């Protein structure tokens, strides 16, 4: 009986593992989840920049850190063959790989600088946050202009 329980638990763990492996193997799903995190961070950051959400340094830092980790990892999930499927990535991502890399680098540079500027506790006030986030927000559309297709 104990063996059976153990066996069932093992099966459960492996099948659980298997589903998460499938998700991890699907670059389209991963890059979407990364962009969702960017979008959510932008929503919070934008709300604070507009004054619709009260600014706190910790929230400011969370926005910048989420942007930064996304900027540094996003580019790793565009392997050859992932241009088809449920994706809004433009074929230009692969046709103009150097241009895409440059656009990603612009995003990382902006988020890296914002990280450096935010210190341990996050940008002290909303103005400091705005100054740090300006270039980050600026990099969104230059990449979306060339490398995203709305369907």
């Amino acid at each position, binding site marked *: 009986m104990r063996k059976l329980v153990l066996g069932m638990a093992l099966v459960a763990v492996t099948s659980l593992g298997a589903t998460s492996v499938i998700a991890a193997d699907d670059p389209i799903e991963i890059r979407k989840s990364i962009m969702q995190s960017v*979008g959510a961070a932008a929503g919070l*950051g934008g709300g604070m920049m507009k004054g619709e959400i009260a600014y706190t340094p910790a929230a400011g830092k969370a926005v910048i850190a989420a942007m930064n980790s996304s900027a540094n990892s996003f580019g790793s999930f565009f392997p050859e063959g992932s241009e088809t499927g449920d994706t809004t990535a433009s074929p230009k991502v692969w046709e103009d790989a150097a241009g895409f890399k440059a656009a990603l680098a612009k995003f990382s540079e902006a988020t890296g600088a914002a990280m450096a500027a935010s210190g341990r506790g996050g940008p002290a006030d909303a103005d400091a946050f705005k100054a740090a986030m300006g270039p980050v927000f600026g990099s969104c559309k230059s990449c*979306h202009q*060339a490398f995203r297709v709305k369907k």
Partner: protein
Amino acid sequence: MKKLVAILVIVGLAGAAAGWILTVPRTLSKMQIADLPAGDPVNGELLFWAGGCASCHAAPGAKGDDKLLLGGGLKLETPFGVFVAPNISSDQEDGIGSWSKVDFANAMLTGTSPQGSHLYPAFPYTSYARMTLSDVTDLYAFMTFLPSVSGKAAAHELGFPFNIRRGLGLWKLLNLSSEPVVSAPAAGSDVDPDLWQRGRYLVEGPGHCGECHTPRDLMGGLDMSRWMSGAAAASGEGRVPGLDPESDIGSWSAADIAYYLESGFTPEYDSVGGEMVSVQENMARLPARDREAIAAYLKALPAADAN
């Protein structure tokens, strides 16, 4: 038999003559030309951005002052062939520096070139035709100050029958009108009439929003019964979203639309993308009141089939 042939020849000739007359490139009337004002370059600059001239005629991806270099070259790949945006800089040889104010107004309002031939509607004169003569001459005055860029853009690559410009005469009879598209705000919308009128002028005229956001029929004319209801992208892949209250941005407030045009961010903080980036950057240069006017007009659009 001889008689039949003769009749056929006469009918054929009459048809050809009618076709020839129907396809004559039309221009502004003498009265309109006599009324041409001097042109105010300050207002002209506003129209330059509202009209999105740089989006097609500056080098693709141009930023800042490079948007004022109108050497052309952008390719629009459409179902009818490839249209290449010409050089409209002030260069005397390669651009339109030698055009008179009348030449310019004819191109903008009647789609007819200084040589008297039809221009292709990839140049959206079907919208610009709704502009006032005074705004067109203001735009002309502004554009004369822009730098000269040498070099002609490549020729269009069009197959038969689209390579025959004369045929556009018939197309223009069906699709070219200076009348507004929407006659009144949607019933029940509470909108300042002046703001709405300004919005209608900007959207339907210089802004030429409908050229991408409205579906086209088989001949490439806009399907006015589905005004602003979204369309397949005419150039490239993807879809251009609808702008009427029942479509993609129906849930946005007027302030959301104005903010999007100013900042490039949707209410969910997604960013503007694709060809709209250049449009949004142009709109960001307009006075805030004009963006509010555009938003007011879009919020008060009647449901797509009610026009």
